[in-house]
Structure formats: C-alpha cells, structure tokens
C-alpha cells in the first residue's frame, strides 16, 4: 500500500515537472529561451522542446509570420521640385529572433522605426527622379518599380543589421498631390475637357457642312442632268415636228406661205388692236367699187 502511494506521488511530481518544462513551438513562431533574461537557445523549428522548469528558464515566443505595415503619409519634393505625397506599405518579418529580442522590445516600436526609415529613404531616393518617372503616358519612363526596389534594397541592409528583421517588400500604396497642386490639376483638367468638347462640336459642324455641300452638289447634278435630258427630248420633239412640217409643206410652199401668214395674222391681231388697212387690200376690192358708185 505504501509503495503504491509513493509511486503515485512520484508520478504526480513527474507530471507537474513535465508540465513546467515541456513546451511546443508551432509553425507561426520562433522561441528564444532565456535564463534570467539572458538568452540561451533559439528555436526556429516547430516541435516539442524541454527547458528547465518554471522560472528557471523563460520561453519568449516571437512572431515568425510576415506582417504588413503602412507608413505615415509624407510630402516630398521630386528632383524637379514637384511636391508629392506618398504612403508605402512594407511587408516584413523577423529573420533573426535573437537580435530582434535584444535590440527592441515590441513590434509596434519596430514598425514605427521601419516606417521612419522607409520615409527617409523615400525622401533621399525621390530626389533623383522627376515627375516624368512617376507618372507618364510613356510606360518606359515610369520608374516606380525601380524606386521600390532601391528602397527595398537599402532598407533591407539597415534593418537586418539593426533589428534582426527582414524587409520582404516595399510598395507605394498611395500617390497624391498637395491641396494647391490638386486645385491646379483640376483647373487644367477642366480646360482640357472644354477644349475637347469644342473640338468635337467643330468636327460635327465640319462634317455636317461637308455633307451639306455634297448634297448641294448632287442636287445640282441631278437637276442639271434632268434639264439636259429634257432639252434633248424637246429637241427631238422639235426636230421630229419640223420634219413632219417640212415634209407636208414642201408639197406646195406657196400655199404653205399663204396659210401660215393667215395663221400668223390671226395670232397677231388680237382684241383691242388697231388695224390700218389700205383700200387697195383684198377685202375692200369690192367695197371700193361700191364707194365709187355712191359718189
């Protein structure tokens, strides 16, 4: 009975000891084991580990996964004195947990330091570029990628040495103009659009005028064509009629002249005309005779 109780007690002690000295490291973290504040081991692989129990050794868990931070907006001058407001994102992770643990204490402070560092690098780097290298309709001039790579490389060196962290990626997250520049950009945009609108209207009017002129031309052509055809038709009619007349009248030109002159006279002598006739004329041939007998 006594041995049983003894065994049980030993088992309990072992269990308690195990609880205080066994620990796991998962895939998301590093562990630095410290003995009274002094680091003794760095564990980078996940798994089950032993340490001296309780307060004799402390487990410091440090984030292994990459994190993202956003820098404070900063107003800078480009090489050509154009002001620009820039915000970046930085993707970083702890690469050397021991250095990290020794240099600083919290992630927040590190983030702030990284942000400041990136901003100061931005300031010095962007001085080498003009607005053409930031925005341009010619894609080969845009050097945003190059700027990001330069900042990444330079910040990486500093960060690894100082803080035991690795900067994985730096990217521009926002580009903006200061208020005054924005206003002038708006004004220019408005002016450009007005010009464009006027251009469209002018184009429309021009095209309409062209259509109008073309129509005028075609209408004139159609009418001229018709007139030509009409004249030809009339000419044909005249010619044919003349032929008919000529054929008929040539049978007796003397009689033709006589009938025609009668016709012509009847056309000429209309109402209200005054006729002066000689007594010698044909119709008075007989009347004259009577006059003479009266005398």
């Amino acid at each position, binding site marked *: 009975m006594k041995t049983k109780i003894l065994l049980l007690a030993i088992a309990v002690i072992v269990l308690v000891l195990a609880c205080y000295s066994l620990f796991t490291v998962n895939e998301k973290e590093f562990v630095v084991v410290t003995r009274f504040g002094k680091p003794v081991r760095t564990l980078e692989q*996940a798994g089950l580990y032993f340490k001296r129990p309780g307060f004799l050794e402390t487990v410091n868990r440090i984030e292994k996964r990459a994190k993202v931070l956003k820098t404070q907006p900063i107003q800078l001058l480009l090489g050509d004195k154009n002001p620009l407001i820039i915000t970046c*994102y930085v993707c970083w992770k702890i690469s050397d947990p021991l250095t990290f643990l020794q240099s600083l204490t919290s992630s927040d402070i590190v983030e702030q330091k990284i942000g400041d560092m990136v901003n100061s690098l931005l300031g010095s780097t962007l001085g080498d570029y003009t607005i053409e290298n930031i925005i341009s309709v010619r894609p080969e001039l845009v050097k945003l990628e190059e700027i990001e790579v330069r900042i990444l490389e330079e910040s990486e060196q500093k960060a690894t040495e100082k803080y035991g962290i690795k900067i994985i990626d730096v990217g521009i997250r926002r580009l903006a103009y200061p208020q005054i520049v924005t206003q002038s950009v708006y004004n220019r945009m408005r002016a450009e659009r007005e010009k464009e609108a006027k251009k469209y209207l002018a184009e429309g009017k021009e095209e309409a005028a062209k259509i109008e002129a073309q129509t005028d031309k075609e209408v004139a052509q159609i009418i001229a064509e018709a007139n030509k055809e009409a004249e030809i038709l009339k000419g044909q009619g005249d010619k044919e009629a003349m032929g008919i007349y000529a054929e008929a009248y040539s049978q007796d030109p003397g009689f033709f002249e006589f009938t025609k002159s009668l016709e012509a006279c009847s056309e000429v002598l209309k109402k209200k005309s005054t006729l002066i006739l000689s007594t010698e004329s044909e119709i008075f041939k007989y009347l004259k005779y009577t006059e003479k007998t009266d005398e």
Partner: protein
Amino acid sequence: MEMKNAILSSKRFIFYILIVLILLYIASGIYSIPQTQVGIHQRFGRIINPNVKPGIHYALPWPIDKVDKVSVMIVQRILIDDFSSNLEQGSTPYAFYKMTGLTPNCISGDNNIVNIICAIQYSVSNPVDYLFRIKDNERLLRDIVCNSIIKCLAALQVDEILTYGKRKIENILKTQTQKKLDSLNCGLIISFVELRDVRPPGTVQGAFDDVINAKIDRRKIVSQAESRRNERLPQANATATKIIEKAKTYKVEKISAAHGETQRFGKQLEAYREMKKVTKKRLYFEFVKQVFPDIEKVYIVDKEGNKNPAKIKIFSDN
C-alpha cells in the same frame, strides 16, 4: 462486511468513471473536415499532414495534436475603395482624409486625377502559406492591389482609364497582383478583378460630362445633316422626273401638233389643188371674218394717201 462492500463498490464506480473519461479523452481526437475546407494536422506544433481532405478523421487529443481548418473552395471578395472619394466614417479613404486633409484619388499618366473602386475575388490556394507565412493576408492583398492600381494608372491616359481601357486595366491588375502575391508566398489566388467605378472627381465631373454631350451633339449635327440630305435627294430626283416628264409631254404635244397641223394643211391643200383661186379666196375671207370682229378699231386708208382717213364702222355693229 457491508462497509467493505460499500468501499469496494464505490472504488469500482470510480474506476468505471475513470475508464469512461479516458475513452472520452481518446475519442475527442475524432474530427471532421467539411466539403469546402482542408485541414492542417500538426503534432506538437509541427505540421505532419498539410492537406487533410474533407471527411471524418482522427488526431491525437489535446495537447498533442492540433488541426487548423482553412476554407479553400469559398471565394471571398474585398472592395478596394482606397481611391474613391467616399468619405464615410470608418472607410479607408476617410482615414487618409483625416490624416492629410486630402480627398483620396489616383493620378493617371497624363496627370489627371481619377477616383477608382475595384472589387477583387480571391480564394486560398495554399492553406499552409496562408496560415503560417503571412499574418495579415487580407491587408497585404489590399496593399498590393493598391500598389498595382497606382502603377497601372501611372502609365495610362485618362481617356483610356475612363472608357475603353477598363478590361485592359483589370487584366493588368490581376496579373500584377498575382505575381506579387506569389513572390510573397501569400497563399492566395485572385480569380476576378472588376473595376466597379472609375470616374473623374466630382468637381470636374461636369467638364467630362460636357465632352460626352459634345460627342452626342456631334453625332446629332451630323445625323441632322444626313437626314436633310436624305430629304433633299429624293426631292431633287422628283423635280428631275417632273422636268423630264414635262419635256416628254412637250415632245409628244409638238409632234402631235405637227401631225394635226400638217393633216389640216394636207386637207386644205387637197381642196386648193382642186380649185386654187376659190379656195385661197375662201380661206382669206374666213380669216377676215374670224379675226376682224375682235379688232377694236380698223382704219381704212386710200391708196392715194388722204391725209384724214375716214373712219368707217363696217364690222362693229353689223
């Protein structure tokens, strides 16, 4: 004796309870993975199976094993409104506005300012990367999309961005963002990028609308000219037909008149040939009879040349 029995039975009771508890503990390792998820099976923190398929599985109970479940089939979406002018409290643009006093926007290659909102659909492609490589996946995704938007728009003209280039921008955004995600081992895959709203800022929107209206007006002016043309050409054709018809009529009339006249002449000639003098005289008097009544005044003058010719009314009243 009874006492002994009681102790014995209670001991047995505790023993059974212990057995049950141990069984329950062992059974607690049974777990299931739903259809849309995969599991990552870890033992003492170390991954021993990164891809547990849907179904019922067993893992050693806590604290030995641990299973993380990640949705892989479910498409998630985020709205990137960082470059919109939507300044609602709590939105990303509002945070920027509060910090700088500027309305968020994006700059195009020809130095115009635009507002842009896009929607991203994505899903988890690599659960291990997703869980263990990056801490703030969604935040990183948002940052990378913003970065891609800035780079993409910085090399494009505003007209292209606002009108015909949307599909192109969507494609660029998708490939650029995916490239970055892959190089950072984010474990995410983008399935769809959609430009939701691309527009010039409110203060210059009117000027842009004017351009659109001008385009419509241009079309209107041209189509008006065309419709006038469509009206005038048939009219001209009608006029032409009329002119020609008139000419045809003239021709026919002229010819038939000629026929009529010559026929009459023919008849007269026939009569004339039979009795030349009489017919001629008859025709003459017929003419006089027909014509003279209409004449208002007739003066008859003597051949000898009387200075005051006598006015004789012969035909008027008789």
